[in-house]
């Protein structure tokens, strides 16, 4: 039995075939995992299933048209200026005699929150909630619509371990009620934990389908990338070798103390809103702090402005590449050389090659590149300045598995050349794979610090204030 099915669905965009004869059946009471690298066509398929887009070929059978399909988008689609209840009922407000029945809305919101085991006040302003709770509101919004099919795009990207556990309990509850769920995530372990079946997309085609019971992470990665998963590189310099060097960066900001030596890759792990971004922005000078002391290669820089700190050898690659990094209207070359002096511009082609930026040419618009390649362009812009200390805020967010490996490789190479790298990530796997030292942050403080050898997933999660 199926509630929603894509039959030979194709989607032709100008220049690219995003989907090529895709079949997908969604059955009630089942969780369907959908995976694929960026650009594989997942988002397009989801939008077609949700009825937001019409395919150029094939058809969708089922509830899409009747509003029985709800979609939880990865980027939050919430209104920070309205209350939780307002958000959940937006577009289908409860009214009495033409006026909004705020009490009924708040009552039903409270009930939805109870089902999610969350204590979020229905009257609270969404903008005042931490990101994790905003994600919960997004989920509650979809659930409150009593949809028969729920499409979730990376629903856990901003959730703590405890919140993920609650979400999974809710998903199981929804399954029992016969709701069909399409679950998209880069976190493959999660898919294996909650999914019933798994569909792998590559280049707009379904390349593999399996029951979750028979799937493994390496198998999925192989199907996604088209080649066997590469061995994790872990270059571990001897601890003694590192600690004998003077730190490249030493900083104390309020109660947070940070240091990094040449060749070190320090991973800052924490949930969204843990203060990692704020820490990096304070280091580069974007934010002021009451008590800060920052020493870069032995020189105090806390009195310098941003250009001064950059000249001293500090660079920050921001988290949100769309909002504060890439200039989409400019070419790849212009984006790479934006911050560099004219005489350095000739280094662009070599650097592009080194960074393995895949594009039709350096003069093509940067917007035509995939997310992973855009991130590489951004990274090369900062490398043009030959920094001594590199701050990377979530360097692989929204980047597919293949590009992620390449970015990791680049980071290791840079550290190998003597750069001190600090990066922030909310993904355990990434922190464990890349960092030589791990700092855990929660609520604006450092809660724990591990060397690569002593770090375990459990310890990191526990230090975040989630469940141990």
């Amino acid at each position, binding site marked *: 039995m199926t509630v929603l099915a894509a039959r030979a669905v194709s989607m032709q965009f100008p220049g690219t075939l995003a989907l090529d004869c895709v079949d997908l059946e969604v059955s009630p009471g089942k969780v369907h995992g959908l995976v694929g690298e960026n650009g594989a066509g997942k988002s397009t398929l989801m939008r077609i299933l949700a009825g937001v887009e019409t395919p150029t070929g094939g058809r969708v059978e089922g509830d899409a048209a009747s509003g029985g399909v709800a979609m939880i988008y990865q980027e939050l689609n919430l209104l*920070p200026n309205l209350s939780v209840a307002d958000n959940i009922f937006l577009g289908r407000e409860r009214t009495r005699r033409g006026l909004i029945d705020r009490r009924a809305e708040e009552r039903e919101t409270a009930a939805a929150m109870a089902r999610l085991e969350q204590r979020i006040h229905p009257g609270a302003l969404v903008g005042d909630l931490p990101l994790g709770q905003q994600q919960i509101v997004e989920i509650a919004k979809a659930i409150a619509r009593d949809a028969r099919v729920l499409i979730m795009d990376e629903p856990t990207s901003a959730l703590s371990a405890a919140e993920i556990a609650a979400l999974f309990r809710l998903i199981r509850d929804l399954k029992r009620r016969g709701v069909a769920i399409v679950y998209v995530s880069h976190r493959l372990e999660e898919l294996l934990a909650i999914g019933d079946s798994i569909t792998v997309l590559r280049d707009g085609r379904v390349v593999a389908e399996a029951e979750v019971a028979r799937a493994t992470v390496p198998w999925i990665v192989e199907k996604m990338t088209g080649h066997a998963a590469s061995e994790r590189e872990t270059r571990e310099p001897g601890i003694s070798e590192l600690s004998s060097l003077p730190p490249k960066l030493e900083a104390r900001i309020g109660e947070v103390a940070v240091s990094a030596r040449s060749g070190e890759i320090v991973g800052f792990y924490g949930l969204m809103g843990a203060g990692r971004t704020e820490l990096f922005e304070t280091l580069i000078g974007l934010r002021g*702090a009451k008590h800060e002391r920052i020493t870069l290669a032995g020189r105090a820089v806390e009195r310098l402005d941003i250009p001064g700190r950059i000249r001293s050898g500090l660079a920050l690659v921001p988290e949100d590449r769309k909002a504060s990094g890439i200039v989409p209207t400019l070419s790849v070359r212009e984006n790479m050389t934006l911050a560099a002096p004219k005489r350095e511009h000739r280094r662009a082609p070599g650097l592009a090659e080194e960074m393995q930026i895949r594009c039709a040419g350096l003069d093509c618009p940067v917007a035509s590149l995939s997310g992973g390649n855009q991130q590489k362009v951004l990274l090369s812009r900062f490398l043009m300045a030959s920094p001594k200390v590199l701050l990377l805020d979530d360097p692989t967010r929204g980047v597919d598995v293949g590009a992620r490996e390449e970015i990791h490789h680049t980071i290791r190479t840079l550290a190998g050349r003597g750069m001190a790298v600090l990066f922030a990530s909310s993904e355990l796997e990434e922190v464990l794979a890349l960092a030589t030292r791990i700092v855990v942050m929660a609520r604006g403080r450092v809660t724990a610090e591990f060397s690569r050898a002593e770090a375990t997933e459990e310890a990191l999660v526990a230090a975040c204030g989630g469940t141990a």
Partner: protein
Amino acid sequence: MTATLFRLRALVALVALLVTFSCLSPAFLSAANLTILLKHVAINAIMAIGMTFVILSGGIDLSVGSIAGLAGMIAGGLIDHGLVLRPFGVVVYFQVWLVIAIALMGGALVGAINGLLVARLSVAPFIATLGTMYAARGAALLLSNGATFPNLAGRADLGNTGFPLLGEGTVPIWLMVAFGVAAALVAARTRFGRHVYAVGGNERAAQLSGVRVKRVKLLVYVISGICSGAVGLIVASQLVAAHPATGQSFELNAIAAVVLGGTSLMGGRGGIGGTIAGALVIGALADGLVLLGVSEFWQIVIKGIVIIVAVVLDQLQRRIQWQPSVK
């Protein structure tokens, strides 16, 4: 507590002004002076009420002053000269309530043009309403070739007397109260009102939640057009004459009242109550400074400073709300 006072800063400023001026000038709190003050405020407040909807939705309406002028001229023309239907060789004189309805419809029409330009053709609100600001002002001038319609009292034999009633005594004040109450209810308690906040807060999110974004945008400009039309009628009624230059630079006063009232120019935050308080602050300031004999030029300087302070406070409020977690 501090946060609440901060949020209601327009009200706090108003109370402070009232106390200061009543101490400095005994005439300030007299019934006669307060009536004059409120009548001035009413004109700006009604216009600012419409403007609030537009700004809450994330837009801006520069055409309000011109719409006021145009609506006054439509009413003036219809009362003084009637509607000339050349092919039939007749001149139709409407009753005053119909004249008012037609003039308001004229305001709504210009508003609808603004709305269509913004919602359907995706013209930036600043540009779209800048264009209609000129066009509507030109239309007002064309209606009389730049002249004033001098006598709006109407003629008993034509059955169109009564227009001056609209601006008489405390009528404008009660109109302001009526507009204010209705608008506050619409903004805070109706589906449409919530959708206005939603569009101003995050247009994409609103769209994906099923809000008809284009219709909301169209309607806010129509509301603004009607409010501005009403202002034009009140002014014409008070003067018992319609002048095509009526309403020039009113848009800036209206925007100032909205901003002073704590409505964010980015959209999505604020409300009608604040706007009324903002209009009262501007009105009380002007009135009080006149009573104190402050030079007219200084008054303009002070008004500018007050607006800047209001926006700076708005920024401060946002910074307080978004405290970084790393101190």
